[in-house]
């Protein structure tokens, strides 16, 4: 029997990120990824100066009454840190906004509910109709292999929309995720929120209107107005701008989590996740470390464990060898929340697996004559 030829995958020489990947990433001639390279900028930056820049930046947004900025919060570790930073370091009065996509874990919901108790600010929660959400879950899973598209879109839309409606020009985001993981930008870019990034990266090109022409899981225009992003005229009228905190303040997850636990009683997950070793991430959405992430494995051959290991190697918390063992342990696991989701959307596992397989990237996977799928693995690399 001839040996199955596997597509070529390369991994960053410093972290464990693969190419091809789910996020735009570039490798230099030494085989080091742009994410690792951008990470090293942090040691060169004068962060005290950055804080001064940020204080200067927010100065025109101070008001004598009412909220001075909007923070989109999930109740996660970053939400707590952002809110703490904005109140304590910037001296601003934030208004907290949450998109509730109906996927909260109990511990994540407790953290969210605690925010208005431990921080002196108001908190709005937007919760779409569960019936619409179920149709969006199913439709997006069938069309893009991602039941959580509604969550990406909701999180990227609701805070900006609300800021426009409330006439609050400043929105403060936390980490620029694509910069942090993939090295999309330099910290010197002082990159801000854009409509283009929202549509292209966070929503993978799909906007709410694209969800209206589906026969199997029909959704009416009138049901989705909450996902309509403000137009340029409104953005200009309000002077809307979204800035990323991690361009101005060095992001240190370990210290930040210690602080929010101690000061505000933030809780991490009590139960371990099936697809990653971290218990501090993605508590707002049961599928982010589970079914949604399993689909990343199906599509691109890696998952959240690779993401978390990459971050922890760069932060000096583990070696590459230790990381590879964790990738080997977790990335392929088919998590049990898939059955919870299938019950939620009233579909079968066979339906799930058949659709999922149509999204396997030919740049990663090869199928053997017996129907099984194979790919190159980081622990086999030379």
């Amino acid at each position, binding site marked *: 029997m001839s040996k199955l030829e596997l597509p070529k995958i390369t991994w960053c020489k410093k972290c464990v990120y693969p190419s091809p990947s789910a996020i*735009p990433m570039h490798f230099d001639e030494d085989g080091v990824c742009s994410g690792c390279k951008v990470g090293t900028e942090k040691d060169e930056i004068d962060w005290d100066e950055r804080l001064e820049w940020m204080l200067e930046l927010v100065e025109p947004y101070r008001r004598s009454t009412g909220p001075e900025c909007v923070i989109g919060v999930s109740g996660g570790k970053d939400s707590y840190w952002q809110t703490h930073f904005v109140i304590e370091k910037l001296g601003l009065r934030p208004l907290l906004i949450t998109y509730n996509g109906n996927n909260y874990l109990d511990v994540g919901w407790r953290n969210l509910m605690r925010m208005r108790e431990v921080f002196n600010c108001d908190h709005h929660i937007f919760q779409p109709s569960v019936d619409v959400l179920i149709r969006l879950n199913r439709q997006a899973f069938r069309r893009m292999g991602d039941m959580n598209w509604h969550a990406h879109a909701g999180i990227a839309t609701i805070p900006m929309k609300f800021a426009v409606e409330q006439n609050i020009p400043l929105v403060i985001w936390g980490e620029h995720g694509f910069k942090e993981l993939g090295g999309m930008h330099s910290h010197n870019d002082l990159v801000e929120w854009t409509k283009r990034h929202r549509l*292209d990266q966070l929503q993978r090109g799909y906007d709410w209107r694209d969800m209206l022409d589906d026969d199997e899981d029909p959704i009416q225009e009138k049901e989705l107005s909450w996902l309509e992003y403000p137009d340029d005229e409104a953005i200009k009228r309000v002077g809307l701008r979204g800035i990323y905190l991690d361009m101005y303040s060095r992001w240190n997850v370990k210290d930040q989590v210690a602080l929010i636990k101690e000061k505000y009683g933030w809780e991490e997950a009590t139960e371990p996740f099936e697809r990653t070793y971290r218990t501090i991430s993605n508590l707002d959405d049961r599928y982010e470390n589970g079914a949604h992430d399993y689909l990343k494995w199906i599509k691109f051959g890696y998952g959240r464990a690779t993401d978390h290991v990459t971050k922890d190697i760069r932060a000096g918390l583990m070696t590459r060898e230790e990381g590879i063992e964790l990738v080997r342990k977790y990335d392929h696991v088919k998590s049990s929340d898939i059955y919870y989701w299938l019950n939620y959307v009233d579909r079968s596992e066979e339906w799930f697996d058949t659709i999922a397989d149509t999204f396997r990237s030919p740049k990663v996977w090869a199928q053997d004559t017996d129907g099984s799928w194979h790919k190159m693995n980081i622990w086999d690399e030379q």
Partner: protein
Amino acid sequence: MLKRRVIVVLYLLDGFMTRSEVFRIHQLLGHPIHHVERLVEWDVDELIVIDISTDTPKFDTDRDDYRYKGPKDLLGFIHQISSNCRIPLTFGGRIRTMEDIQLRIQNGADKVTLNAVLDESPDLVREAAEKFGSQAIVASIDFTRDGDTAEVVTHHATKRQGVTPVEWAKRAEKLGAGEIFLNAVDRDGKASGFDVDVIQSVVDAVSIPVIACGGAGHPRHFLACLEQTNVAAVAAGNTFHFTENAYPNLKTFLKSKRDDIR
């Protein structure tokens, strides 16, 4: 009065829109299609697309979970964006032959930029200018600076030419180029401002329009270049990717300061 233009440059690497720094560091910013959509909404004066891929050309953006089918190659991309785009389009990068030029123009490019050709086959510049008209041929001139000396480099800034941008620009004009696209390699992606000295020296030396690029990071940099030189156009890549409505905001700023902005 001829109005001065503000031009957007889009670098493509394997089909991805790319942040470039000193021609060496590249970071992928995403799929260019939504950027072009925004440029159309902003009604930009002109778009220059430069394919900076050095390996075998490939368009690697395609994925099954993305809204748009990625084009398979550069011509597919040109076709995709030119079909619903009224913006004057210039394409550059990887152009070596008359056929390369012809294919780009046939698929929707209004102009092409020639860089390595100026070194490898200068006669092609003349022939292309005769065939398509000088207005379609832009000489792309990259330079590095060492103290007071500026030197032309070609082939992604890997090959030194041992001549000044002024000499190279005069030669390009003589060969029939209709415009000069002048880019400062050392300032690329540095957001430290335009190299106004070199820019003005080239503007003084030729009678064709000069587009200045390299170093823009703040609206004041564009203004300084327009005030201190006689360039026909200012251009930038990275800075238009970083903030919301960066282009219209820049235009509003420049128009509030000068009355010669298109």
